[in-house]
């Protein structure tokens, strides 16, 4: 069992490494993508400077906490879209029959598929996340928690993408639903929880788990609480398990399209 996990880990890392090497062929584009993504994220600081000039706190967050919220949002988005970029194209992969190429591989089909390419600009998101942590306040404890929450959050975002994309096995073209859910997660993630009321808040801890990905980590970085920490771990495992379960359940219904496809 342990050897199998070790082998799978090795294959996944190799897949990411080769995808990254492909992207690094053009160095100028590679670095400009990263730098421009960081500048792109930094533009939004202007929005919050203006809002905080009107009010001392927004939705219960101080200015530094907003920066940290942006840091966590960028970090989790970066982890998910860099390492598991293809989970966001999974619905199309299933519908167009491109999954055939991954079925014949000896390792885990889902992991092989979703790690087959990387989004370079997301390195900029991850770096930006760490810069925001430095501005918030860098301590060893904060750094470890931040890294941990970026990983758990990245896993949850990926799992949500896989869960909704897997519905394609049953309902065909569900890209619109999957894309809408992913877009909802990204849009809500950078605004403080306190400005929303009622039903939306329930969504944040269920179908759109932004609460677990972003809001709870902010609370923990401010004031650590072991039971909340365990909740985040538990929910992350739950989302990963559901994603794998649904994908493999659906895979049994998958039929090939005889698509001729060459992966170089």
């Amino acid at each position, binding site marked *: 069992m342990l050897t199998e996990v070790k082998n799978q880990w090795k294959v996944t890392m190799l897949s990411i490494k080769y995808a990254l090497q492909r992207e690094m062929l*053009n160095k*100028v*584009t590679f670095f*400009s*993508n990263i*730098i*421009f*993504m960081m*500048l*792109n994220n930094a*533009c*939004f600081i*202007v*929005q919050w400077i*203006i*809002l905080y000039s*009107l*009010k001392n706190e*927004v*939705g219960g967050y101080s200015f530094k906490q907003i920066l940290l919220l942006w840091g966590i949002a960028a970090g989790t988005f970066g982890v998910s879209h860099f390492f598991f970029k293809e989970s966001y194209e999974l619905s199309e992969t299933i519908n167009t029959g491109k999954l055939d190429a991954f079925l014949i591989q000896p390792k885990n089909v889902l992991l092989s598929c979703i790690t087959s390419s990387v989004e370079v*600009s997301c390195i900029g998101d991850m770096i930006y996340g760490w810069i925001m942590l430095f501005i918030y306040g860098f301590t060893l404890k904060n750094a470890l928690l931040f890294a941990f929450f970026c990983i758990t959050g990245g896993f949850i975002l990926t799992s949500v993408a896989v869960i909704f994309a897997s519905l394609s096995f049953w309902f065909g073209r569900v890209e*619109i639903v999957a894309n*809408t859910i992913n*877009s*909802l997660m990204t*849009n*809500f993630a950078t*605004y403080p929880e*306190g*400005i*929303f*009321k009622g039903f939306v808040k329930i969504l944040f801890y269920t179908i759109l788990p932004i609460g677990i990905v972003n809001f709870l980590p902010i609370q923990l970085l401010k004031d650590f609480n072991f039971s909340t920490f365990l909740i985040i771990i538990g929910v992350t495992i739950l989302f990963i398990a559901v994603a794998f379960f649904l994908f493999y359940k659906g895979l049994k219904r998958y039929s090939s399209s005889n698509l001729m496809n060459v992966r170089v």
Partner: protein
Amino acid sequence: MRKYFYILKSELMSNLQYAFDILVGFISYCILIFIFLNLWKYIYADPTELINGYNMNQMIWYVIITEILWMSLGGRKLCKKICNDVKSGNIAYNINKPYNYVEYALFNHMGLVIIRFILVGLLGLILGIVFLHSFPSLTILEILGVLLSCLLATIINIMLVTSIGLISFFIEDANPFFWLYSKMILVIGTIFPIEFFPAVLQPIIKFSPIYVVSYGPAKLFVNFTMTNWTQIMIAQGIYLVISFLICHGIYYKGVKKLNVNGG
């Protein structure tokens, strides 16, 4: 000119077939308006309170109009298309046609923008009326004045995005420049009126494209005055000429560098 209107018409007819798909794509517009509605409700303790000369309803209408302009533009799609045309060499097929590529890109993209503007415009107006139970008091003539300003804003925006896409002649991927441009428009031009920025920055923003592509039409919608309209029209006229010259300048300089491998 007739050939360009023919391109516009055929693109318009083609996009009409996908009106439903376009409408579904506007879910993110609804989400953004919902977020800003919540945000401004939180910031304005009293909806009638004035912050920098705007009450809560005016602020939300301002965001609704600027977002209509930005969402209907489809700038990312245009920039990506032009980048791909240049990178893949497809532009070679357009160069030898009896039209100018820049004008072709403008009229071709307008075919998409018109459909998007009508759909997202209706959606925005419905959202505004449902959430705010109010509509700015505008006469028919004033509405026409705002629409003219929106049209000029869109043409200027298309020319500027096309210019960014044409940078692909010189560097491989111009998309990162578009990200920056879009964030500049979004953060400085869409979310807040110019009056919300520090006094020292306001004159700079007034001379930037943000004034003509975003602030101008939205300001006219929430608070129409003849003086404002005249000022915005003059600024849009100047920017129209500048963006036209920049776009053609980059295009002609880039075409000289073009080297397409046959295939």
